[in-house]
């Protein structure tokens, strides 16, 4: 993880600020930084999204490929995650430096998103036991300024919303052999239902309080943080503690409650932005990376 050096006095200043509910950038403890979302930014993917949260920038691309279902669940498709930590984000990621963080992130994302409660995995099945859609979700970290999990989860939800999977027809010849035919029409495609896709809220314990959307500086002052994935309805689907410090049960309870409230409130504006972007269609001016 990208780390920053903080002096003792700075730490004290930040911790007292959190106690007074006024953080260094003027936010309260439960405020997010300004977030910008754009979908359909990479043309050679089936769905993509770029999310900017403060100075954190992540790009998510989703590619659909036909594969074999897993032997345990023959009637479901599945998702594969790969997180690439670009050395652009911080020089520490150069070479194999970002691998550890990448694996940690992709393992967590796999736990949060790859289950039938989050995404309709049955809908990804083409013919049980033989063929299914595999969604390869590739995450690229372009800039790190704390709160990677939240930014990535929002980007994944946006990219899933943007994903269009071509429709396929299965034809059977006389001998019983099956053949998959892809539709010729590029607009003849199915979309994913993102209603139950959760967003991750990271709560960092700073002093006696907890903050959402911590910057790198605040992260340096916190001992432990809690990841909570929450759906639109406020259902908690996954909780994970990260960081070396310990949390007492009471604060875990408080943090879960905050996470639930904040996570639930995250979905409405996100869907609003995505619907708005889609309604603009051709009129939308693409911003991309140089805008």
């Amino acid at each position, binding site marked *: 993880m990208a780390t920053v*050096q*903080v*002096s*003792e*006095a*700075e730490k*004290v*200043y930040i911790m*007292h*600020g959190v*106690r*007074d509910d*006024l*953080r*260094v*950038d*003027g*936010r*309260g403890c*439960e*405020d*997010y*930084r*300004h*977030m*910008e*979302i*754009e979908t359909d930014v990479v043309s050679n993917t089936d769905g993509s999204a770029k999310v*900017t949260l403060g100075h954190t920038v992540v790009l998510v691309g989703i590619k659909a490929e036909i594969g074999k279902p897993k032997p345990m669940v023959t009637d479901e498709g599945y998702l594969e995650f790969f997180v690439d930590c670009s050395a652009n984000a911080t020089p520490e990621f150069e070479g194999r430096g970002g691998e550890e963080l990448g694996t940690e992130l992709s393992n967590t994302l796999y736990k949060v998103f790859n289950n039938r409660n989050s995404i309709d995995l049955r809908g990804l099945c083409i013919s049980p036991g033989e063929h299914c859609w595999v969604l390869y979700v590739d995450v690229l970290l372009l800039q790190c300024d704390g709160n990677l999990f939240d930014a990535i989860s929002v980007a994944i939800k946006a990219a899933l919303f943007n994903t269009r999977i071509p429709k396929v027809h299965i034809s059977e010849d006389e001998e019983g052999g099956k053949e998959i035919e892809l539709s010729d029409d590029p607009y003849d495609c199915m979309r994913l239902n993102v209603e139950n896709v959760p967003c991750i809220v990271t709560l960092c314990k700073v002093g006696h309080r907890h903050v959402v959307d911590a910057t790198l500086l605040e992260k340096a002052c916190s001992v432990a943080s809690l990841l909570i994935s929450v759906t639109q309805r406020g259902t908690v689907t996954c909780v994970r503690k990260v960081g070396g410090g310990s949390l007492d049960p009471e604060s875990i309870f408080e943090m879960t409650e905050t996470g639930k*409230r*904040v996570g639930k*409130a*995250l979905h409405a*504006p*996100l869907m*609003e*932005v995505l619907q*708005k*972007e889609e309604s603009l269609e051709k009129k*939308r*001016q693409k*911003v991309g990376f140089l*805008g």
Partner: protein
Amino acid sequence: MAVDMRLPSVRKQVTDSLLSATTGKHLVVPGDVITSDTGFMRGHGTYMDEEKLTASVAGEVERVNKLICVRPLKTRFNGEVGDVVVGRITEVQQKRWKVETNSRLDSVLLLSSVNLPGGELRRRSAEDELTMRHYLQEGDLISAEVQSVFSDGALSLHTRSLKYGKLGQGVLVQVSPSLVKRQKTHFHNLTCGASIILGNNGYVWLYPTPGQQDEEAGGYYTSMEPVSLSDREVISRLRNCLLALAAHKVLLYDTSVLYCYESSLSHQIKDILKPEVMEEIVMETRQRLMDQEG
């Protein structure tokens, strides 16, 4: 709880001719031909490409007689003797500290060029050498002055004045060194209720205005007393104003910072960093600065 999500907005195009017409500056990007006249000398930020003098960085062209340089907009810090800098200790070594000052090489602060508690004329003993980490340890922030520049461009710093030394509670803002205006003094007690150190290296330190200073500590005593909420509000607002000014490439000095602070007062602190608010208050600041200049 507040979440502000939106679609990204396209940055407004400023036409080149309009910009240079209003500011009278010759602006270039890498690869731009500055002149094809061979009578000029090649300075920093330029190179010869097929007999033509070409810019290698984005910035403003400067001409001194026959010498042509390009002063880059975004750069590392090229220190000069007498510059005020804010830096962070990265290493404690034999008789010296290594300081990160946004230059290409880490600067050094020698034990012999700091004021230790106990007066000016104190001998540095072996004991002082052993307790160096007691004064400054890794991660600590200091303000200092450039004492000399080595042949490889690395800087040697000194803190032999009571105004320099270890920094206590406050907020560090990092901007490009080219945005800090060179002035007689870089230490300001702003009238809005906070103090600011505008380091020439682009590191700006915001801190609550201190009461009376304790001379005995020689600048190595830091108060860990909580800062009052009103001071915090001022510092947070100033921090966001500095970032807004830097995002719109406005030169930073006491007046511009203060004007920006005043025009931001109608907005909440956390809203200042939203693009449209940022644009509005910077426009207002620019207008006031222009009016003042006449």
